[in-house]
């Protein structure tokens, strides 16, 4: 019996356990239910939980053993039966515990509390797993490839037969260039949209425009990527790059940057909207009362007051742009180079992570392992940006609370 079936069957057992526990509780109580310490449903739940948790615990142990390699990966059938046996044992044990003095409710609450706590630990576990797997494989990579060449190398030419040049600088340049263009597009548009929404727009315009802009945020990035590949890229190539003699590549830094800018507009605008709304109304009233126009109020009072928050929002948007994958995979191209011409194809860290890990290269070669080093770099950059941005935003919020 495979583990997935064992899980389903033990779920059924838990339901049966609930019914058995309840019936036994009624039987023990006799004619007067008030003789029980807990209500019969709690007795039912306690039996169901002991049975299910026992099965789940054995399953968890089996999975751990599998992962560490102590157990054959496909030794499923035996373990399925063991899981089932544990669930039945749990059921029987839970059922025998029932009597009128048994504090079923307290037991159930303790178990539920434990489960809740475990669930909240998963976030930490995920972060730990990310960091560990990245560091572990990056360590492997640096045993095969010198870290100085990785961080300071200006050439990116992976080869199948080895002797690859794997310098991160051209990728970093492409990433930053594209992110810069994306911010150049999204920050003014997003910020002005937010200002207009919160200071000028009538409720009618707001109720119409706000959901539309939020719709942009709900569109998956693959859609933006396809848009870049099929529409924006050819458009820029045919009407700008070729007539100006700047290149003839459909995928370019500008293509990816523009489309990513569109993607970030709702992100910037909703963040700045929150921040602008957090500026106390008294500041606005004061400025308006002194005779300034609404735009002067915004420019000279609201924006300076909201500046730290806006900076935080821009940093968050930058971290989004740096970590974005699908738009650059489809829109930016794959040529690792350091150039200032925005109509040329360049590549980013995320593009190379995808191409190094989806190719056919051997997993233990530096060409594949470099993806983990790139991933770690990406993780550290975005994490640093986020921590700084969240710190700024939080600090700013406290100021006006």
């Amino acid at each position, binding site marked *: 019996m495979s583990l997935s079936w064992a899980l389903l069957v033990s779920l059924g057992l838990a339901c049966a356990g609930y019914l058995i526990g309840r019936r036994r509780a009624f039987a023990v109580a006799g004619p007067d239910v008030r003789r029980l310490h807990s209500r019969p449903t709690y007795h039912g739940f306690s039996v169901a939980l002991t049975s299910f948790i026992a099965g789940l615990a054995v399953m968890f142990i089996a999975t751990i053993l599998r992962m560490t390699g102590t157990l054959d990966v496909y030794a499923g059938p035996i373990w399925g039966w063991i899981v089932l046996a544990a669930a039945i044992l749990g059921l029987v044990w839970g059922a025998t515990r029932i009597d009128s003095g048994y504090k079923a409710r307290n037991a159930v609450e303790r178990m539920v509390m434990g489960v809740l706590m475990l669930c909240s630990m998963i976030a930490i576990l995920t972060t730990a797993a990310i960091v560990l797997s990245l560091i572990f494989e990056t360590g492997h990579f640096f045993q095969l490839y010198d870290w100085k060449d990785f961080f300071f190398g200006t050439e990116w030419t992976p080869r199948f037969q080895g002797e690859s040049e794997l310098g991160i600088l051209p990728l970093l340049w492409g990433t930053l260039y594209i992110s810069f263009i994306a911010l150049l597009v999204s920050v003014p548009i997003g910020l002005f949209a937010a200002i*207009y929404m919160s200071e000028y727009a009538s409720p009618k315009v707001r109720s119409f425009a706000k959901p539309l802009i939020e719709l942009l945020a709900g569109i998956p990035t693959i859609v933006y990527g396809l848009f870049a590949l099929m529409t924006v890229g050819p458009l820029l190539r045919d009407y700008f790059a070729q007539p100006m003699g700047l290149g003839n590549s459909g995928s370019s830094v500008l293509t990816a940057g523009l489309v990513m800018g569109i993607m970030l507009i709702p992100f910037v605008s909703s963040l700045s909207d929150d921040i602008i709304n957090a500026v106390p109304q008294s500041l606005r009233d004061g400025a308006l009362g002194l005779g300034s126009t609404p735009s002067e109020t915004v420019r000279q009072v609201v924006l300076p007051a909201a500046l730290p928050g806006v900076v935080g929002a821009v940093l968050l948007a930058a971290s989004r742009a740096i970590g974005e994958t699908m738009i650059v995979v489809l829109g930016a191209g794959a040529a690792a180079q350091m150039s200032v011409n925005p109509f040329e194809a360049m590549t980013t860290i995320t593009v190379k992570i995808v191409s190094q890990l989806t190719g056919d290269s051997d997993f233990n070669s530096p060409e594949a392992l470099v993806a983990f080093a790139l991933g770690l770099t990406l993780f550290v950059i975005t994490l640093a940006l986020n921590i700084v941005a969240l710190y700024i935003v939080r600090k700013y919020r406290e100021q006006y609370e």
Partner: protein
Amino acid sequence: MTDLPLSQPGAARTDKAGSLLAQDARIKSRNAAEKRFRTYGATAIGIAVLALVVLLVTIIGNGAGAFRQSYLTLPVTLDAELIDPEGNRDPTEMSQILTLSYGRVLDQAVQDAISAQNIQIEGLVEDDIRGLISREASSQVRNRVLEDPELVGQTVEFNVLAGGRIDGYFKNRVTMESAERDGNTSPAQLMLADALKERGMLVTRFNWNFLTNPDASDQRPEAAGVGVAILGSLYMMLVVLVLAVPIGVAASIYLEEFAPKNRLTDIIEVNISNLAAVPSIVFGILGLAAFINFAGLPQSAPIVGGLVLTLMTLPTIIISTRAALKAVPPSIRDAALGVGASKMQSVFHHVLPLAMPGILTGTIIGLAQALGETAPLLLIGMVAFVTEYPDPLPQGLFDPASALPVQVYNWTQRSDPAFFERASGAIIILLIFLLCMNLLAIYLRRKFERRW
């Protein structure tokens, strides 16, 4: 403060400031600046809305063609010599006959049809006639014959897929000019298609197969569909629903209602807000390192995709669930505790039901986000070319499958432009799913929203 007497010599205001009714130069420039500023704001919103409209219109315009497909209706004489040389109609023997022989049967059928209809076109060569029907058609006929061996020797009406170039011609993707430069088609072939269309043998109609077919190889875009991808996405969403929702809600209940204020809970909270901002591709790397290399789960299986997406959506679900729990006023908890409920009872019997609409909305939005996610799935091998449907649940979770957004990416990497149309078509399906989920979320929010 006393008013200055108006008769003072300094009261020559009229010279300097002028009337209140007529604007002086400074006021004029200030008002102009005001107007400009307002226009900038309106323009910004206009650009955003325009971008949205252009995006949707181009995608829908490009993808609408994927839902229509050209079919050719042909009487096919199933020549017994070619497809059943032994002549005993034994299905096991007949299944050894490859699609190649059926291709010959079909070529003959097209030839016959052309001469029967008395179509004469200059420069029409045999290759043109062969390319008229899709390569998929021969396996279509083969399957039908293997199902019912009695058909051998008879003349049966078949409805087969037209070739990709012919289909493109009726969707304006292929023109006479482009056909001249194209090795896979020729103007004569297109004229033949026109002639067949006039006689009603070639029709372009709604294409259910796009929704149900699996992916097809590079040479036959006309047969490719999103069936496996939809099923794969569905399996993954199921995994996310079963894992992320209970775990996310449990974690938020603990953090919001029970957790003591200490170092550990602080760390968990900072952790969650940072996890929400980790680039999705990093989760893909985690999935590759932890679930495939370390735990030994199979590549391109929905279970791995589901696990990765679960980890990715957990922070979103936790954040929105906590907001929903926080919105329930403390008086509810106090009242429950006041009449003797335990802390656990007050949460599960009173707070949680009241927070449910908010939790549901957040969950649906998290699921929608997971449905559209591509990057992490690329790394765990979901880009593989899959033409087999995965088994039913739960075994199917371990079978190779595709996912909708990954299928789109996969098609953009093919050389035939017909696949771009398919990719846009798949996007339309994805967007329809997302729209439904978001509408459901909005409906739930409107219906159950409660102001305290």
